[in-house]
């Protein structure tokens, strides 16, 4: 296109998702504030949170996630796989996942994945963006409850088993909703501003109360419980951003 004749199209994109599944330095997933490892489960890249970046992550910083911690996770996972025995895999183990898939495939509900996802994206953009307030976040909590409820009534056209990308998108929407829940509740809970979390109603950083990681646990739809993990400070202490 010629910028002299037409306006340049600009589209916002999600740059990076900070936070994620907490892991050790070897990519092993941990499940609580005591760093209890979930044996055999690994996370790496954008999904994981080794807490490499602090409360803000700068452009291309994720290279560290990939090159260093992706490699470490791979090495450790390979080592684990070599020494571990196979588990007995029964129908029972498959039950929950299979149920999830079958429920979506057999649903005759009227809700459509694409429409629901568009609503989720728009409302998250409006209410849980970089600058947020308690009021907006509370509003988003209610919206998410409603979306969660409608998600139970989604149905899909494609009932096939081969490359059912519609089913994949439907499953992914469920995960998006859950991640959104964790994000919104945590942001509402954290009454300070830190890094990329900018509460307009709490503009100051509060090290006394909030120098800690949030661990969010889903209790039920619309309900999230929190635990906290201490921040390991190395040579660098958090300082105010004054430039």
């Amino acid at each position, binding site marked *: *296109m010629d910028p002299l004749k037409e306006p340049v*199209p600009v589209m916002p994109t999600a740059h990076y998702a900070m936070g994620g599944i907490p892991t050790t330095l070897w990519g092993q997933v941990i499940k609580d504030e005591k760093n209890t490892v979930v044996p055999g489960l690994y996370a790496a890249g954008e999904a994981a949170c080794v807490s490499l970046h602090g409360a803000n992550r700068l452009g291309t910083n994720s290279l560290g996630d990939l090159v260093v911690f992706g490699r470490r996770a791979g090495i450790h996972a390979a080592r684990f796989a070599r020494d571990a025995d196979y588990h007995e895999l029964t129908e029972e183990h498959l039950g929950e996942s299979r149920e999830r898939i079958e429920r979506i495939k057999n649903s005759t509900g009227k809700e*459509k*994945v*694409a429409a629901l996802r568009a609503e989720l994206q728009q409302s998250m953009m409006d209410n849980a963006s970089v600058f947020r307030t308690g009021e907006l976040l509370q509003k988003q909590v209610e919206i998410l409850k409603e979306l969660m409820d409608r998600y139970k009534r989604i149905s*899909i*056209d*494609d009932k*096939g*088993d*081969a*490359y*059912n*990308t*519609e089913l994949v998108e439907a499953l992914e929407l469920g995960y998006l909703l859950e991640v959104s829940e964790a994000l919104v509740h945590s942001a509402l809970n954290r009454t300070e501003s830190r890094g990329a979390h900018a509460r307009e109603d709490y503009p100051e950083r509060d090290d006394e109360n909030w120098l800690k990681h949030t661990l969010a646990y889903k209790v039920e739809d619309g309900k999230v419980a929190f635990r906290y993990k201490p921040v390991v400070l190395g040579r660098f202490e958090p300082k105010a951003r004054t430039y």
Partner: protein
Amino acid sequence: MQVTLKILRFDPAKDKKPRWETYQVEAEPTDRVLDLLHKVKWYQDGSLAFRRSCGHGICGSDAMLINGKNRLACKTLVKDLGSVITVEPIRGLPVEKDLIVDMEPFFAAYRAVKPYLINDEPPPQRERLQSPEERARFDQGTKCILCASCTTSCPVFWVNGTYIGPAAIVQAHRFIFDSRDRGKRERFKALGSGSGVWRCRTAYNCTEACPREIPVTQLIEEVKRAILFDSF
């Protein structure tokens, strides 16, 4: 504007052979073909299957045969195509469903040229240094995103499934001409066989199809000459 989108579809569970399906889509001239496919999938027919990931021409997953040419759906604008757009899966690879093909033969060829640095010499104290000129020698090949646009536009690859294909040769070029690499003879083995680089008939479809504007044919010819001068 209204766009007529014709898609060559195939569902292994129902169809014996591919069939054309036509959709009417409302589109902006600046929409990408990927946007149109999304509109169909999200609001008209959810069973349409295609691969895409980043949507920015980097991941290389949405190469398709659009209006008779291989292109990335995420980099092709409606205004450059007109109001009737045909979309088919890339050719020469088995179709799994609709626009999704089995990429395994493509990646088998990729693996055959050993697309990684080979150097058994003891590592130096610090980096293996390289001058800007030495780096520039193989720069074009590094732009490859393995989308298979080139290989599946090649008339030889369509009829001869064993041909290693332009993409693998570009990857070989990237290491053959790297001053730090010592593995060119190993790569020449894969490239010199009956299904290797000598199968290239310089039809230039690969060069024209490359969404990264790599001069594919030129790199292939450089590889041919490298093997030639190495043997005589």
